[in-house]
């Protein structure tokens, strides 16, 4: 990563850079998503202006909110399992940070580059279920417990179509390494024409749709917000949380939205790359160094588009009922994704 920048940085310096990079990669998208989509797009879609007082057009509202949460008392219910109760939001947030680790942001701008990247991402992505279940259970509150159980049921149900949707991409790219998947898309050609590379969204469109729907459910955003359905469960597993711990859940929710959008853009939209034929690159070693700067910007743009769609859907649709939600996952998405795998595998072998 660092050797390309033509400066020698000691190991602790690299580690520090990675930590800072990880924080930026998680918190910057989360903040942007919350301000741009949750505050502004949602308000405009409801014909109001949203926060306007803090900073120009309310752009400092996020800091005001964080300040507000930090001031609040960190309440632990009397009957709660205090230690577990306190750990739960940390588990959720940490799973997000662990998730960003495998995402490549440029030819050399990655945190780790290991060959089972997709596998790792999907595995770590489901760690947050534990945090949520634990939060619901340890709160000693019926609403929290119900919310936690609903969340667990939902996340497990939608984990499966998500994994299966990714399998199609893995088959097509022939690798589980996210860097290789990016390479496969940007060096690919469509019937000999390499003008836009070969983003997998073209052939794996079904997979892309399934993946985005599953992401929507994984993030418990409406229409899949059964676990935190505020009109029936107060706030689900977050009911008892206040102050900083609630803030951690909140950051976790939107940071995970950003990170899943990053993963989706790597898997389906070509990741950090631009079609290599534009500059005559053929392998990853030929890619110019400036892509390490441009790559993150490209990734960020793609992430904003995808989270924009996620939020747009969230603000538009009413909530699924629990049985509809489960039926949709098991009876529609999973068979569809299995069929997608079969077709992809057959086409891969035939072509």
């Amino acid at each position, binding site marked *: 990563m660092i050797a390309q920048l033509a400066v020698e940085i000691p190991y602790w310096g690299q580690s520090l850079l990675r930590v800072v990079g990880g924080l930026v990669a998680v918190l910057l998208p989360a903040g942007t998503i919350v301000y741009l989509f949750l505050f502004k797009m949602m308000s405009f879609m409801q*014909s109001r*202006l949203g926060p306007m007082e803090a900073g120009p057009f309310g752009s400092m509202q996020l800091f005001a909110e964080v300040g507000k949460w930090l001031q609040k008392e960190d309440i632990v219910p009397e009957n709660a399992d205090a230690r577990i109760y306190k750990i739960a939001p940390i588990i959720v947030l940490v799973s997000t940070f662990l998730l960003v680790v495998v995402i490549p942001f440029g030819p050399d701008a990655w945190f780790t580059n290991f060959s089972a990247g997709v596998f790792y991402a999907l595995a770590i992505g489901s760690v947050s279920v534990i945090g949520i279940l634990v939060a619901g259970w340890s709160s000693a509150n019926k609403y929290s417990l119900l919310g936690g159980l609903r969340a667990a049921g939902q996340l497990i149900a939608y984990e499966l179509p998500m994994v299966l949707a990714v399998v199609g991409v893995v088959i097509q790219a022939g690798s589980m390494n996210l860097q290789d998947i990016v390479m496969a898309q940007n060096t690919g050609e469509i019937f000999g024409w390499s003008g836009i590379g070969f983003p997998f969204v073209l052939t794996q469109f079904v997979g892309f749709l399934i993946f985005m729907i599953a992401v929507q459910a994984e993030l418990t955003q409406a229409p899949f917000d059964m676990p935190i359905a505020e009109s029936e469960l107060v706030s689900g597993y977050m009911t008892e949380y206040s102050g900083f711990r609630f803030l951690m859940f909140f950051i976790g929710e939107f940071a995970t939205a950003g990170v899943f959008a990053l993963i989706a853009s790597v898997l389906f939209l070509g990741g950090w790359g631009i079609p290599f034929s534009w500059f005559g690159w053929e392998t990853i070693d030929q890619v110019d160094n400036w892509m390490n700067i441009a790559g993150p910007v490209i990734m960020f743009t793609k992430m904003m588009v995808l989270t924009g769609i996620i939020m747009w859907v969230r603000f538009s649709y009413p909530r699924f009922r629990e049985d509809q939600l489960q039926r949709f996952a098991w009876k529609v998405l999973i068979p569809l994704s299995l069929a997608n795998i079969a077709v992809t595998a057959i086409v891969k072998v035939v072509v």
Partner: protein
Amino acid sequence: MPKLPGLIKGLGVTMGTLVRTVKDGANTVQYPHAKESPPVRARGVIALREDNCTACMLCARSCPDWCIYIEAHKQLAPPRRAGGKPRQVNHLDRFDIDYALCMYCGICVEVCPFDALFWSPEYEYSEPRIADLLHDKTKLGEWMETVPEAPALEVGAEKKK
């Protein structure tokens, strides 16, 4: 699958509202900077015309929240006609409405037989201290200035005698 067009239509509705808000501005008003004028007969605050009040207590008794406090004493007033007996009237000592309790049902205004209570559309009287929401008869009297003119009677309506 037959529901798909509806889903896309739903996305179109929200996006359409977004575009309309960006182009034409929001339907809401940024309150402290800009104010919406309430309708003339809005239920903002209840004003008291002290001269009309006879301390009959109908309003205090009909109030669901018991937020009206009335105290009065009897006193003699000059006779209506010369040589007559002095009249006995109720003089208001205290007429308070606690707006921390009031739920703006308007029963007191309806029930008042002497037209002493009126609705005013004025709504900006929040206070930092809850105790200051108890408006006494002087303050309630001041609200009378904000009470709009009664709308003209309909054609052919029975005139008040």
